[in-house]
């Protein structure tokens, strides 16, 4: 799946939280990143979007875990087991601190875990790093420790 325009990186955010969706798109427009951002409100809408209505397949999916109708774990499982979706780079984007949940999504082959930051500035720093690097190169064959995105890796 190639992006329609080479200048715009297709990114999808699945999050039921309206504030987080707003902050996320605000951060991207503030950063003036060449990103084509699509937003979906829950897991069911996400799967529906990916399987039927997406014109451009996202290269990166930011996936919240705790969502109504279909949660992030279920979506992750479906996507990673779907032949035409399994190559999407999935970044778990959640507030969870549960080691078990983090272990679970690592086992389910999510590509990166980013904890929702406590400040807008930090969110922008994270996004400007993540969306401007070759993710598949930098974050391939991760260990569990590297799986959790640290602001340190920005340095």
């Amino acid at each position: 799946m190639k992006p329609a325009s080479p200048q715009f990186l297709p990114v999808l955010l699945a999050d039921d939280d309206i504030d987080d969706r707003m902050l996320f798109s605000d951060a991207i427009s503030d950063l003036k990143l060449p990103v084509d951002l699509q937003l979906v409100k829950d897991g069911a809408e996400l799967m529906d979007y990916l399987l039927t209505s997406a014109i451009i397949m996202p290269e990166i999916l930011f996936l919240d875990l705790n969502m109504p109708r279909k949660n992030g774990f279920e979506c992750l499982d479906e996507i990673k087991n779907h032949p035409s979706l399994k190559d999407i780079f999935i970044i778990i984007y959640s507030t969870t601190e549960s080691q078990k949940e983090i272990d679970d999504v690592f086992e389910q082959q999510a590509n990166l875990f980013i904890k929702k930051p406590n400040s807008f500035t930090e969110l922008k720093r994270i996004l400007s790093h993540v969306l401007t690097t070759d993710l598949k190169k930098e974050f391939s064959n991760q260990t569990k420790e590297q799986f959790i995105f640290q602001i340190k890796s920005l340095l």
Partner: protein
Amino acid sequence: MAKILIVDDREDNLMSISSLLEPAGYQLVKANSGREALKILLIEYDFALILMDVQMPNLSGFETASLIYERERLRHIPIIFITAHSQDEENIFKGYKTGAVDYIYKPINPDLLRAKVSVFVELYRKNHQLIAQEQKLIAINKNLENEINERKNSEEKVKLLNLQLLQNIDKLEVANKDLDRFAFMASHDLQEPLRKINVFSERLDSEYGKRLDEGGKKYINRIQTATARLQALIKDILTFSKISIDKTAFVNSDLTPLVKDVLLELDDVIKEKKAEVQIEQLPNLAINPNLMRPLFYNLIHNSLKYSKKDIKPVIRIYSETESAVDKLKGPETKNKYARIFISDNGIGFEQVFSEQIFDMFKRLHNQNEYEGTGIGLALCKKIVEEHNGFISAKSAVGEGSTFVISLPMPEVEKPAPVKVKS
């Protein structure tokens, strides 16, 4: 004194038998007919022996004896018949009744009479002793039975109480876990809106701050300070609630590198305070490192936080081992404890607060003077207790404080006595 009943219709016979027996110290009761004897025996039963003349008018000695033996209470009293020498008479009584009887033939041989009487009296005494002993034994047996029953009852009660206790402990543990889980969930969910407040007040400040005057900016500042404090509180409650949820196995660890790691974490504060931290060799203990780190972090951080402004903060971390009596197991079991001291030259506190400071949300200082959530030391106490140890503090205002963590040492096997080869 043994009682003997003498029955004879002739006064002179009664007299002569009495005179023969009196010197031996018996208590003698005389009856001059079978009827009178029966009358006496209606009131008195405690005769050791009856001496009975056989040939008496109206009721003969045998007839009297058989009437006596009809009564249950008298059946045990032996009777010696005094009779003229005649085998027939003996047989007559055998026809009536058998019993503990003997015969003395007239004319009476005084020695024989005394000897026979003494034998029967002796028998009576022995019997009485036996009966008394038997009664004692029965009483003892009864007491024993009662005791056994009581013991059984109290054992049942103890078992029941134990069961209730165990059930209560289970319930308490479940309730405690539930509470911790509740605190965990609540504080986790509380973080969400708090994160939004943080993010949006930050954006308000950075994007619209220029349009606000000093007053407006101050309010934003206040919101951010309050938010940071709430975040710290929630984070601490979360940590606190996770202690009993997180059941990582205890591992034998060297505390020295662990504490050095904690010092690295605190490096910024140590540099900022220009503090000197001295750390001696600490013991190897079976601990949960995930819990030990926040324990030392909190205690050392406290020492840095409550340092004096005008002098260089010096913190000493050292240890010693000691045998302490296990309060639960009693004085026989001396457990070895490692005591780890965190001692500082800070502002200290009044010794009267040395226990209260470990209570949840207990603070000795105003939030404006020293920031804090009032959870740190409660967390420390809970962590130490999870390790079956205890924590205490010694301090005086202006004199610095020393916190002492006592943790049980793994049981060291005593060196086996040297065996001499034979």
